[in-house]
């Protein structure tokens, strides 16, 4: 029987935590890119695009992320593409993040006063120029705190990838708990590592929020 020290457990968990970080970054960056495209499509004022993206957002916000992961995992395979937990987790989390981010950013764009659009239109700026030079820079200022806050959701969401067999922090925790027979200690450590990842982001989002509202108090 092999003995496991606390350091063995922690070291292996930290190694697995790298994959949690990598998956979070991919989901956040990919989700941001897709979310931005969806946002611009929605702002063009095309009714069909607006309704379709609205339904997309409702679908992802109204169903469990776990089901989305299962659907992607089994769905991609239906099209004859070889799936791996890694690919399914990336695609599912990117789509999930894009739905939330596009909705968050839409709110931020809506918070830019209508007159800004009208003033820039009266200066004969095109739609792209209005967005790039007038509206988005102002929306960006409001968008940063909730976007950083959403990153916490993404990090916590990656834990569900363990269910389809992607070895990240939670999955590694389960495996280590099984060989060490110390589930209390191992899951405690797993929770603390997630906390160490998420809490600084939460604090940062909170401080950004306070800075943004400082002028209004």
């Amino acid at each position, binding site marked *: 029987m092999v003995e496991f020290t606390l350091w063995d457990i922690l070291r292996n968990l930290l190694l697995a935590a790298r994959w949690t970080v990598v998956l979070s970054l991919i989901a956040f960056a990919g989700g941001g890119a897709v979310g931005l495209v969806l946002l611009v499509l929605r702002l063009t004022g095309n009714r069909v695009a607006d309704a379709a993206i609205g339904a997309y957002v409702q679908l992802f916000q109204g*169903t469990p992320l776990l089901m989305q992961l299962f659907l992607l995992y089994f769905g991609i395979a239906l099209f004859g593409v070889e799936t791996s937990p890694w690919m399914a987790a990336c695609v599912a989390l990117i789509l999930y993040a894009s739905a939330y981010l596009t909705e968050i950013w839409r709110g931020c764009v809506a918070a830019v006063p209508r007159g800004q659009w009208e003033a820039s239109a009266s200066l004969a700026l095109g739609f792209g120029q209005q967005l790039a030079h007038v509206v988005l820079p102002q929306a960006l200022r409001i968008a940063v705190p909730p976007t950083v806050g959403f990153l916490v959701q993404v990090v916590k969401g990656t834990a569900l990838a363990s269910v389809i067999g992607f070895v990240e922090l939670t999955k590694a925790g389960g495996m280590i708990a099984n060989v060490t027979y110390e589930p209390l200690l191992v899951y405690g450590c797993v929770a603390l590592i997630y906390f160490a990842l998420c809490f600084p982001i939460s604090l940062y989002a909170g401080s950004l929020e306070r800075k943004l509202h400082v002028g209004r108090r």
Partner: protein
Amino acid sequence: MRVALDFWPVLAQWPLLLEGAAWTLGLTAVATLLGSSVGVACAWARVSGPWALRVPAAAYVELIRNTPFIVQLFFVFFGLPAAGIRLTPLTASILAMTINLGAYATEIVRAGIQATPRGQIEAAESLALTRLQVFVHIVLPPALKRVWPALTSQIIIVMLGSAVCGQISMEELSHAANLIQSRNFRAFEAYILATLVYLGLAILVRRVLHWAGQRFVFGS
């Protein structure tokens, strides 16, 4: 490559899906009652409780909000037995969901309480109400009314999160889908139908809570 979907083998198992949906709703209902109570108690502790309660309440909220639900659930179900606390999948699911909702509800209710106009509390105190009476009758009902939409959204998030409880063999909706696909290998179809049921449940719960709030919680 042709994609052939066949929903009939899954639809033939509809009693399983129905039973799973009932369990999901049941879990959510119990967790909502318990979790909201925890939330109100901790919100009170954070706003007007003594220091000895404020700090643990704040730590509880931050710890739960910054860790994934699945880890909380596994800690309760797999971890606690090592400390001599053995739970069934049902009690573990309810406990984890309550703890999770409680932390978010604390922050939501706290925001509502802090928006109470100072004058209302002073007026109530001048009528010789005790601190508890002021909280229960003056502060809490309008606070709940203010934050009801946010609380509703959080309850729905917890319900959708409860899909994870199938992983500890709690027989709720996602577990039913898993069981069906293991019988007829129609995995994609089973999960699509289960996902649509979740979507329907989310819409249903939003409607019911909107109605229940006005009817029972804060009056209209």
